[in-house]
C-alpha cells in the first residue's frame, strides 16, 4: 500500500496545478450531490407526480360531480353549480408539492450536518458561502424546470378533463398565466426557504417543522389572536398570504387562513405580494449566509 502511495504522489508539486476551488466548480459538485442521492431524486419525482396527479384527480372528481346535471345540456344555465375556479382545480396538488419541495430544501443542507458531510464540504470549500449559493442555484434551476413542466402539464391535463363538463380556463384568460407562473415561483421560493432554514437550524426535523409552522400554522394562530385591524395590517405580509396574492387567479376575493378559523384577509396585489414574498425568501437566505459565515461548522 505504501508503495503505491509513493508511486502516485512523489511528483506531487506538479500533479494538479489546476485544482482550485471556484463558484462554478462548487455548483457542479452540488448538482452532482443532488443527483447522487436516491432520496432527492425520488422526492423531486414525487413533487412532479403530485402536481400533475392531483390536478387530474381533482378535475375528474369535479367533472364527475357535475356530470349528471350538465351532461347533454347547453353550457348556459349551468354556471351557478360550478363555484370552483378551474385554475384552482389545476393547482390542487401544489400545496402538497410545496411540502415535498420545502422538505427537500431543508434536507439538502441539514443532511450534511446530520451526517458530518458538512465538515468535509467546508474543508474543501473553506470560503463556505459558495456552497450555499451553489445549493440555492441548483435548487432554483431544478425546481423551476420541473415545476414549470408539472404546473403547465397539470393545467392542460385538468382543463382537458374538465372540457365539456363545465367551465374551463385558458391561458389567455385574465390572471391565469400569471397564476400558473406564480405557482411555479411560489414552489421555487418555498424550496429556497427550506434551504435557508436547513442551514440556520442544521436539523432536518427542526427545519421542516419551522418551515411548515411558519407557512401554515402561524397565519391561523395569528388570525385567532390578533384583533381584526392588526390582522389586516400584518397577515397579508406573511409568506403564505403574500404567495396567495400571485398564485390565485383573482386575489381580490381575499383569503381564509386555514379551515375553521374563518378569518378572511384582504390580499395584496400580485405585484406587491410577489415583492413581499421575494423579500421573505431573500431575507431568510441572507440570514442563513450571515450565520454560515460566522458560526462554527
Amino acid at each position, binding site marked *: 500500500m505504501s508503495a503505491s502511495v509513493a508511486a502516485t504522489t512523489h511528483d506531487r508539486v506538479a500533479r*494538479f496545478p489546476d*485544482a482550485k476551488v471556484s463558484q462554478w466548480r462548487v455548483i457542479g459538485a452540488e448538482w452532482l450531490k443532488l443527483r*447522487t442521492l*436516491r432520496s432527492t431524486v425520488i422526492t423531486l419525482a414525487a413533487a412532479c407526480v403530485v402536481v400533475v396527479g392531483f390536478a387530474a384527480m381533482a378535475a375528474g372528481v369535479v367533472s364527475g360531480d357535475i356530470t349528471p346535471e350538465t351532461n347533454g345540456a347547453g353550457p348556459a344555465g349551468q354556471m351557478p353549480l360550478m363555484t370552483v375556479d378551474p385554475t384552482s382545480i389545476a393547482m390542487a396538488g401544489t400545496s402538497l408539492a410545496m411540502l415535498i419541495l420545502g422538505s427537500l430544501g431543508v434536507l439538502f443542507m441539514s443532511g450534511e450536518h446530520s451526517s458530518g*458531510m458538512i*465538515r468535509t464540504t467546508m474543508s474543501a470549500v473553506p470560503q463556505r458561502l459558495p456552497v450555499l449559493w451553489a445549493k440555492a442555484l441548483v435548487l432554483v434551476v431544478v425546481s423551476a424546470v420541473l415545476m414549470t413542466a408539472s404546473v403547465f402539464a397539470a393545467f392542460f391535463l385538468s382543463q382537458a378533463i374538465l372540457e365539456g363538463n363545465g367551465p374551463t380556463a385558458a391561458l389567455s384568460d385574465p390572471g391565469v398565466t400569471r397564476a400558473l407562473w406564480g405557482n411555479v415561483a411560489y414552489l421555487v421560493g418555498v424550496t429556497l426557504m427550506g434551504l435557508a432554514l436547513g442551514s440556520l437550524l442544521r436539523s432536518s426535523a427542526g427545519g421542516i417543522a419551522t418551515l411548515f409552522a411558519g407557512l401554515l400554522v402561524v397565519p391561523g394562530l395569528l388570525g385567532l389572536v390578533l384583533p381584526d385591524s392588526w390582522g389586516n395590517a400584518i397577515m397579508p405580509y406573511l409568506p403564505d398570504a403574500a404567495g396567495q396574492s400571485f398564485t390565485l387567479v383573482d386575489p381580490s376575493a381575499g383569503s381564509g387562513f386555514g379551515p375553521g378559523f374563518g378569518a378572511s384577509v384582504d390580499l395584496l396585489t400580485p405585484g406587491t405580494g410577489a415583492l413581499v414574498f421575494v423579500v421573505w425568501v431573500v431575507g431568510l437566505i441572507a440570514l442563513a449566509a450571515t450565520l454560515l459565515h460566522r458560526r462554527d461548522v
Partner: protein
Amino acid sequence: MIELTNLTKRFGKKVAVDDVTLTIRPGVITGFVGPNGAGKSTTIRMILGLDRPTSGEVRIDGRPFAGCDAPLRTVGALVDSKGAQAGRSAYNHLRVLARTNGIPQSRVDEVIEIVGLTEVANQRVGSFSMGMGQRVGIAAALLGDPQTVILDEPANGLDPEGILWIRNLMKALAREGRTVFVSSHLMSEMALTADHLVIIGRGKLMVDMPMSQFIDEKAQKSVLVRSPRAGEVAELILSAGGAITRRDDGALEVTGLTAPAIGDLAGASGLHLHELSPRGSSLEDVFMAMTQDAVEFHAQSDLDAIEAHHLPRARHEGTPS
C-alpha cells in the same frame, strides 16, 4: 507547515483551547495526543477553518486557510467519523469532493485504490463498517495530493492490519516532505508512529518535543521497594536524593536511584527489604499522569507527607502553569 499563534477557543465559559502556540513542521509525523475532551478536535477544526478561533490565528504554509483558493491541494483532512452522507456511494462521495476543486476524475479512482476500497466503491457509505468509513475519509484526505495531511483519530475502527497500514501510509507521506499531523488519545500508538510529539491537556500545550527526547526524559525507570520498616527506608532514599511515590499497598516507588544503590543504602543501615524490583514506567503511564494533573489536582489529597514534598516537583515538570 502549520503555525498556530496564541490560538484560543472558548465555548461560553469553558476554555477548550488555551493560548496554544505551535509550529507543525513538514517531513515528519507530528503526533497530537491528549485525553478525550483535551481540545484536540477543536484545535484541528480551527486549523481547517471549521471553528472560528476566539483569539489567535492559524496559518497553513504561511496563509490563513479560509482564503485558500486550492484547499484540497493544500490540506487533506480526516475529521471525525466518515464525513460522508450515508445514501451516497463512496465513489460518488469522492467525485463530489473532487469536483469542488477541479480535481480530475482519474484521481478519484487512484485514491480508492490506495485505500483499498475498489471492490465496494459503488456501495452506499451507510452500509460500510466503521473501518471502511475511515478509509473513505482517508481517501478524501488524499484526493488533492495535499502538502499537509491532518488525520483526527485515524486508527478509530481500524483492525490491527488497518492500523499498520495507516501507520505506513503516514510514514510514506512524511517521507515525501509533507506535513503530517495526526491525533490520538492513545500514547502507545503515537510512540510507534510519530517523530514529533505534541501533548495537549485541558486545552493547554504541555509537550512539544521530538518523540525520542520525550521517551528519554519522561519514560523514567523506577524501582519498587517493599520493607517492613518502609518509613525509615524512605528517609534514607530521600536523603540520598531519590524521589518516592507511595503506593496504596504500602510499597515505595522510587525514582532517581538504582536498585543496587537502594539495596546498599538499606543494607548499610541494617534495614530489611522484602522486594527490590526495577521497572520501566510506560509512556501511557507518564502521559496519564501528566494529563491528569492538567485536568485536576485530585491526587493531592491522597498523598502522604513524603509525597507532598517530592511529587509535585517530579510530576509537574514540563507543565506550564
